[in-house]
């Protein structure tokens, strides 16, 4: 039975990998198939397809979905109030003579955006102005795209919706998730800074006589927003400081960020309109990840069914390394499997595998957290099929695969650092 479930997972990976089905639909189908094979009844209060997998699974990650929505709302406000663009413009104004310093500044802006909203919205926030600004001061195109992505990667350990996701998916209290993220952050930050310094110097700046700036087909001039006030530029730090230092729960921390952004940038008479407009915009931005989280919740519910746990336990126990050194070596070598929507992609089948590992108890939940957060660092930066990587590469005028080649060595080291830390702490 266990091998049948693994076979179903392989089919799911193929469907996702080949793009035959959108990931969310493939995961929902996987959840259905696994539940049926695991002997779940069609209906009933416990261990049934309709109630356990569809009804309870769909809302299993509800708190994550709300956190994602609030993060997207805050991201929309950062754009609409010109906070993000002011951060980029000020970076260029202060350091434009030194392209490497500009790139480091935009790396920091990306990290702040990544900590607020993560993935594609963060890439858009920091990259829409940040990428052409870096190219304008002479940063090579691939390095510019990678800087945005590495910056987001450095901010992800402080992305509150991600804390919520791991907490719910792996059944770990948020403070425990937060404590591991604090270990992971230095690896991500050092790798991101190293990327900018090494790649900028290795390739050197580029100055071009290009005609593009005089194109009449250039997008119409963006709406003039002016500079946001300096104190509003602290907005991305508000949720992080509240959650990290004052231990405020995630949703109120994000709400405080929303309130701070609007209070510091908007006249009282316009606050309600701006809040509502940016909230609706946030819904649009949050729709894809929320769809995914509904399907992941169903998959987690399916792999946690007693039938599935019972069937998978002997196989998983037989193949997973229990020795800490082997744990580090094997799972570090498997890092590429989280790319190209592979089986260790956390926002795909990887969530199911993590859920199964936790349910079976082959590792402590914190060791699974260490593993998956480490993979998330690689997926979030280098995966040429992830939205933020595709967008950043194409917006810079390069191929996503070029970004993969340049960033993978750095994020692989981050993953090895995270996996090793996890082994030292939890095995």
């Amino acid at each position, binding site marked *: 039975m266990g091998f049948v479930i693994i076979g179903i997972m392989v089919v799911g990976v193929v469907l996702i990998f080949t793009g035959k089905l959108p990931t969310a639909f493939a995961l929902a189908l996987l959840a259905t198939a696994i539940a049926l094979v695991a002997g779940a009844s069609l209906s009933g209060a416990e261990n049934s397809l309709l109630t356990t997998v569809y009804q309870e699974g769909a809302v299993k990650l509800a708190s994550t979905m709300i956190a994602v929505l609030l993060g997207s709302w805050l991201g929309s406000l950062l754009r609409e109030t010109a906070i993000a663009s002011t951060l980029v413009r000020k970076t260029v104004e202060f350091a434009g003579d030194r392209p490497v310093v500009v790139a480091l500044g935009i790396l920091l802006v990306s990290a702040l955006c990544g900590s607020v909203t993560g993935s594609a919205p963060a890439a858009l926030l920091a990259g829409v102005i940040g990428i052409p*600004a870096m190219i304008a001061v002479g940063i090579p195109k691939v390095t510019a795209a990678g800087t945005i992505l590495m910056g987001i990667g450095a901010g992800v350990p402080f992305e509150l919706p991600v804390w919520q996701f791991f907490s719910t998916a792996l059944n770990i209290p948020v403070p425990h998730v937060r404590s591991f993220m604090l270990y992971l952050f230095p690896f991500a930050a050092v790798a991101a800074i190293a990327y900018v310094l090494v790649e900028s110097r290795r390739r*050197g700046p*580029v100055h071009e*006589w290009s005609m*593009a700036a*005089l*194109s009449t*087909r250039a997008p119409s001039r963006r709406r003039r927003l002016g500079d946001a006030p300096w104190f509003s530029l602290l907005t991305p730090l508000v949720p992080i400081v509240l959650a990290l230092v004052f231990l405020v729960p995630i949703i109120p921390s994000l709400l405080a960020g929303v309130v701070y952004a609007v209070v510091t940038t908007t006249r009282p008479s316009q606050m309600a309109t701006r809040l509502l407009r940016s909230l609706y915009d946030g819904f649009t931005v949050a729709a894809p990840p929320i769809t995914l989280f509904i399907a992941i919740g169903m998959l987690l519910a399916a792999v946690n069914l007693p039938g599935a746990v019972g069937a998978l336990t002997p196989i998983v126990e037989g193949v997973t390394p229990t020795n800490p050194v082997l744990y580090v070596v094997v799972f570090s070598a498997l890092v590429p499997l989280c790319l190209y929507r592979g089986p260790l992609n956390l926002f795909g089948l990887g969530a199911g595998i993590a859920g199964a590992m936790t349910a079976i108890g082959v590792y402590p939940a914190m060791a699974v957290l260490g593993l998956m957060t480490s993979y998330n660092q690689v997926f979030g930066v280098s995966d040429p099929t992830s939205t933020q990587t595709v967008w950043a590469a194409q917006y810079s005028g390069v191929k996503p695969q070029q970004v993969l080649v340049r960033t993978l060595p750095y994020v692989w080291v981050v993953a090895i650092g995270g996996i090793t830390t996890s082994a030292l702490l939890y095995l």
Partner: protein
Amino acid sequence: MTRTLRRLSAVDDIELGVRLLRGTPTNEGRDDDQLRRISAAAQRFGAELAADHSDPVDGATVVERAGGDLSLVARYLPRRGRIELFSAAVEHCETVVDRLGWSDWFPPGTVRAAAVLHERAHERITHRHAAELRTAVGVPALRLGHWTRWAFIAGADELAAHAYAGAVLGLPRSPLLITAAAMAAIEED
């Protein structure tokens, strides 16, 4: 060539500079008056730099590259000490100049020479005159009492480089005009 291209000759170099700045990121929030001041100051700086012969002789080698994107005329790679000229784009610019009847302003061979000088100007500005350009452009990034940190304005170095090339070659119009016309011709096709 359409009337639109021919009309470009009636647009002065300062306005062409404004258009370039407008198309350069981080300038979205600046109004037209400020862009005009930046354009004028940056081009004046480039022309004055051309008259300053105190800098040591520049060392970058010039390499011709076949093919490439038609909109990319040349690029300077300081790390490799190399200026690359893209022959397809250079020829395209020369053709546009010829067809618009601007050869009096830009005699044959001007584009190639201007491209090399443009990149040499970047070399001089990047290595030795970046702070002077910021001061000349005169947009404050931060004021603390009497102390002012002058802002780097994206695109200003490009305008200065065009003005430098035009001044060294003694051209009556900035090579910006060629850039605008060549890009418009690409877009028309």
